[in-house]
Every structure is written in C-alpha cells, then in structure tokens.
C-alpha cells in the first residue's frame, strides 16, 4: 500500500525568499525539471513519480533521521542517507519500480518509467 503524505512543501514559501536563491546560485547546474523525491516526515514525496526512460531521479533526505532507499526486488539499494544526503539513480528501462526505506519499511514509494 502506498501512503500519500498529507504535508507537501509546508514551509517552502517562507524559506524561498533568501535560502532558495542562494541554493540555486551555489549549486551545480541542474536541469530545472530534474525529478526529485523528497524524504520528509518518514514519507517519500511524491510517493508515486512517473518519468521517461533515461531520467535521473534524485532522492534527498530532509529528515533528522537517516533513511535508505531499497528496491522491493533488490535491484537497487542506497547507502544510509543522513540529513541532507542525496542518492541519484538513472532509470533506463520502462516499468514500475517499487521501493521502500530499508530502516523504516512502512515508508514506501514507486517510480513508474514510461516512454
């Protein structure tokens, strides 16, 4: 079962004015539409993400507790992601990739890769 988080980007507008601009200025250049899965409040957001083949998906942990991104079928497994750590993965083949947190397995998500 996929649980949809009830809190989406709460607090984002407040932080945007200064912090976000600085982040954009100092971070390496990234495509504006590069998909990202945020790990926040023990949930993957969005819980279901649809991308085209060849897309790099980045998982970022915004919790004060480490999390691990693990494919249900074992095909991928991140290291422990501490606060602020990211894990980037390229999805080359079409299909559904269900995953969960290896430390808190009630946390689940899915990447759907479709042309």
């Amino acid at each position, binding site marked *: 079962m996929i649980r949809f988080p009830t809190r989406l980007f709460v607090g984002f507008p407040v932080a945007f004015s200064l912090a976000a601009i600085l982040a954009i200025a100092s971070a390496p250049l990234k495509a504006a539409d590069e998909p990202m899965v945020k790990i926040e409040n023990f949930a993957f957001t969005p819980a279901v993400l649809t991308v085209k083949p060849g897309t790099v998906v980045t998982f970022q942990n915004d919790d*004060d507790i480490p999390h691990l991104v693990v494919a249900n079928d074992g095909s991928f497994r991140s*290291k422990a992601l501490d606060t602020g750590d990211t894990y980037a993965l390229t999805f080359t083949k079409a299909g559904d990739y269900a995953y969960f947190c290896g430390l808190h397995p009630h946390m689940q998500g899915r990447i759907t890769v479709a042309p």
Partner: protein
Amino acid sequence: MNHHHDNEADGISRRHALECMIWAGTGVLWTISAGVPVSLSLLGAAEAAEAMATGFTFLQISDSHIGFDKAANPHAIDTLKEAMGKIQALPQKPAFMIHTGDITHLSKAAQFDNAAQIIGGAGFDVHYVPGEHDLIDDGNGQAYLERYGKGTKGAGWYSFDQNGVHFIGLVNVVNLKAGGLGNLGADQLAWLVDDLKAVSASTPIVVFAHIPLWAVYPEWGWGTDDAAQALALLKRFGSVTVLNGHIHQIMQKVEGNVTFHTARSTAFPQPAPGTAASPGPMTVPAGQLRGLLGTSSVTVKQGGQDLAIIDSTLA
C-alpha cells in the same frame, strides 16, 4: 544452569502477581498488578527498597544514538555520559547492563568507539542487541558484529543465564520487508525453539530486543511482524518480561504472563503515537529535555518471580 525458582506450582500460581513499578523523575511510583494499575501508596517505598536489597538488579540503557547532533539534542554524547554517571552513582550496583540498540546514529567507527568508551568506562558487563542504526555501515552490519557479535548466532542473537533468570537477546532489525515492521525471521525463531527446550517453565524469562515485540503503533512501524510466533513459544513460562527500545519513551502492557516495557532513550525523545506528523526526533524546550531521557532498572526479587522495573530520568 542454576535455577533458584524450581518450585513450579508456586511459579505458576504467582504469575498474575507480577508487579511493575515506574519511578518517574520526581520519585512517583506506581504498580501494575494483574494488569490493573494500582496507586503508588499500595507499594511502599520500603517494600521497593527491600526488593532492591534482597534480589539482584540489572540496568537497561537504550537508544544512545552517538553521533546524533540535531536540534532535538545537539549533544547526545553528553547525555549518555550523564546517564552513565547516574548509573555509577547508584547505591545498589546493578549486576550488569543490557543495551537495547541504536548505540550509534550512523554505525560509524568513531561513534561505536565513543559509545564503547563511555558505556564500557563504567565497568559493567554490557549485553547488547543492535538497533537499525547500528547496521548501516558499508558492510550492512559487519561493524556491529565485529564488535558485539562474539558468541552470538546469526545477526547477533544469544541467550544467557544469571541468578536463575534466562535472558534472551533477539535481533529484529535485519531483512526488513517492504511494508513490514520489525522482523525476527525463521532462522532466529528456530534457534529460539531450541534455546528454550532446556529451560523449565518456572524459570523467569527476560527477552530484550530493539523494536517493540508488540504492536505499539504499526502506522509508525512500531511493532514486529513475527513477534507472535516468539511469544507463542514463551506461553508455558510463568513469568516473561519483554524489554525494548526504539520508540524513545516508556510504554507498558501486561498480557497474561508477559509484561512488555519500553525504555527511554538517552539521546532524544520521540512523540507519543499519532501525536505528530512523523515519529522523528521531538524538539522540546531545553529545560524539559532531561526529563524525557533516562534509563530503566530491573530488580529480580530473590525467591520470587516478580520483576520490578524502575524508570529514572536524567532530570
């Protein structure tokens, strides 16, 4: 094994007389008898003191999270030092300690080293089981097993006997399944069947593991999928005490012959089930932190099966 409690009839008849005392920071004491909370005054301080004097005591410490430095407690290493200082200052020295996991926050060598130095420095024997935070080194748990796996089976489970009590350390934080809770696994359950074969029904049993062995709050992962199979194996025993950590707060339940109890963390508190958006670290005003951190002391009365659990805060 040297059993002090081999009067089986006595053991079974007393199984509902289990008493659990909780001593919060300011010395509040209450008991549960046959699952019904009884007021503090019914179990006098003298009786508690006598239990301490005639039995033996062991101490539970949990969720040290060495390396944690976030807002909920930027100095988790200092609060562990405080906890160990209080344990060393106890007038009645515990016979040994158990640590119910999450020794470190990120399984880093320096974090294990710091924990070993602080906890080991007190000079007690310490029996560990891992939490999920102790198995996230690059070797997926090798670091823990190299330090604490000697004499254990599988992912680090084992048993031992002390003063007629049979202690069982279980590991329920490996091979976790998508959508699941804590997990013991078939190998460990098979070992448990074998381990219990030689233990008489009148022997008090203490089981300790990181994640609670009962469904505290499955929505937050606070439970163990196959705990019922382990508990079924413990049904024939007159007195079973299950000690867990993981949830960083005291929870208690008595069910038949089994008393379940979770300990506080020495690092940071977590919210009560369902009272926050997530079970993540709970930031409280600085003056309140130490009232929510602490350790648990368990006293086994000589000649009886009653175990008394006393929780003390760092405040």
